[in-house]
């Protein structure tokens, strides 16, 4: 679905990726994990074409529609949750009545139907994250990129977010999930990529992290044990 070939990226003297090759297949939940500064968000930004300053190729299979939920969703505080979604729909050129109808559907989809008329400024962190996911679903995207959707959420918030991601997975969406919460990743991901630095990263799948926890995999990879380069 999305192929990344020989991708290299630097920020000044710091090398983020060195000849990175990876692939995101359709209908799966991919997790991107790794320490801060490993390039997970940068990779998302490159897929979204917001960062074009790199060497190599990002190849899309056909005309893919992308959705994105930022780590800290910034929404106009003076609008209600439903109005936020309507706003983005109208930006896309949808008429007022259709956007109202569709935004109600999406609020329902992410479990915010009871809070649809509450101002965003009164939303909790978890509700904002769910609204962020709802926003990423506008336009029925083929691939949804979720940047730290569970960051700052309490246990129940994390559970709700896991439920939501699993629900989207059930609908056949391809999800690229950037997360620091390894327990969270184990609950929803089919596979993923662990980034340590520009030269050290590995692919993992569900079978592997069912045998060895992601935390152990992380530590071992960082030490250079079990290192499996895809380059």
């Amino acid at each position, binding site marked *: 679905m999305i192929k990344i070939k020989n991708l290299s990226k630097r920020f000044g003297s710091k090398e983020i990726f060195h000849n990175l090759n990876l692939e995101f297949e359709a209908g799966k939940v991919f997790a991107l994990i790794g320490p801060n500064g490993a390039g997970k968000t940068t990779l998302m930004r490159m897929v979204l074409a917001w960062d074009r300053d790199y060497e190599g190729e990002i190849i899309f299979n056909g005309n893919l529609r992308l959705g994105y939920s930022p780590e800290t969703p910034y929404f106009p505080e003076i*609008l209600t949750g439903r109005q936020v979604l309507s706003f983005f729909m*109208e930006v896309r050129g949808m008429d007022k009545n259709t956007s109202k109808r569709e935004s109600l559907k999406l609020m329902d989809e992410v479990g915010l139907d009871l809070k649809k008329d509450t101002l965003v400024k009164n939303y909790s962190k978890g509700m904002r994250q769910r609204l962020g996911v709802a926003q990423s679903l506008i336009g029925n995207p083929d691939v949804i990129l979720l940047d730290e959707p569970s960051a700052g959420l309490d246990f129940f918030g994390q559970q709700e977010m896991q439920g939501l991601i699993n629900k989207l997975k059930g609908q056949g969406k391809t999800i690229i999930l950037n997360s620091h919460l390894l327990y969270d990743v184990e609950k929803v991901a089919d596979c993923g990529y662990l980034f340590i630095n520009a030269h050290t990263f590995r692919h993992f799948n569900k079978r592997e992290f069912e045998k060895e926890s992601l935390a152990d995999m992380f530590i071992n990879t960082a030490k250079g044990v079990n290192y499996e380069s895809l380059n």
Partner: protein
Amino acid sequence: MKALIKLHLKENSKGRSFILFGILGGLLSLILLTGGSISVDNNPTEEIISQFGTQWKFLSIISGFAAVTVSMGSIERHLKEKRTELLALHGLSLDRQVFSLAIGNALVSMILSAILALVLVFIIIFKQAPTNLLGFTGAFITYLMTTGTVSLIVSALNMFLPSIVVAVLGVFLVIIGSFHQIIQGMFLNNGQLMGRILGKAMNLFPPLDVFNRLTRSLFFLEFNDGQDLIVFLIFIWSTMTIVYLASKGVSRREKI
């Protein structure tokens, strides 16, 4: 673009500032109403013309300052927010976002100007000013467009300069622009090379006094100088073009 303009209007149309401007405009109109009556000796017609002429001039200057306040930082703020990328992902390119905000700023400034002039409208009816509906409408539109133009210039500056610098430049622009012809005349009559250069440089400032003269001539039904109208229309068109090109420049700089 329409959705973002609507949101910008909603975010910036705060009831408090509207009430404040309504009171400010009311006070200003009442002060000038009483002040004007002693300015011209025993000629009621001259008195009224002087009163309303001064009112339009003062309202225009205060509206200019309001436009600077409304427009001086919103584009800089928008560019710092993560909203730009998300809007781009939903199909609204950065140049169109910035252009929408500039138009939104102009509309908010014009609404504030209209509120500022609210008491003036009552005074016009009460004092039976020497105008008619057509003259008043023409004058009112010109007055609003002048404020809108100031706002557009300030927005264009804010695409490249920080808000504090834009605020100072904006105030400077309104003051110089409101006395454009007097200051330009002073420079050009100076006769020296520097005077001539500064006199020519004055053409870079918006001739707000010419716009104000047009407002007054329309209001007093004395409009007979098409040149002021042409200068006015050319200036609006040029400002819109500059804002459009500046938006494109911002998009190129930010690479979104």
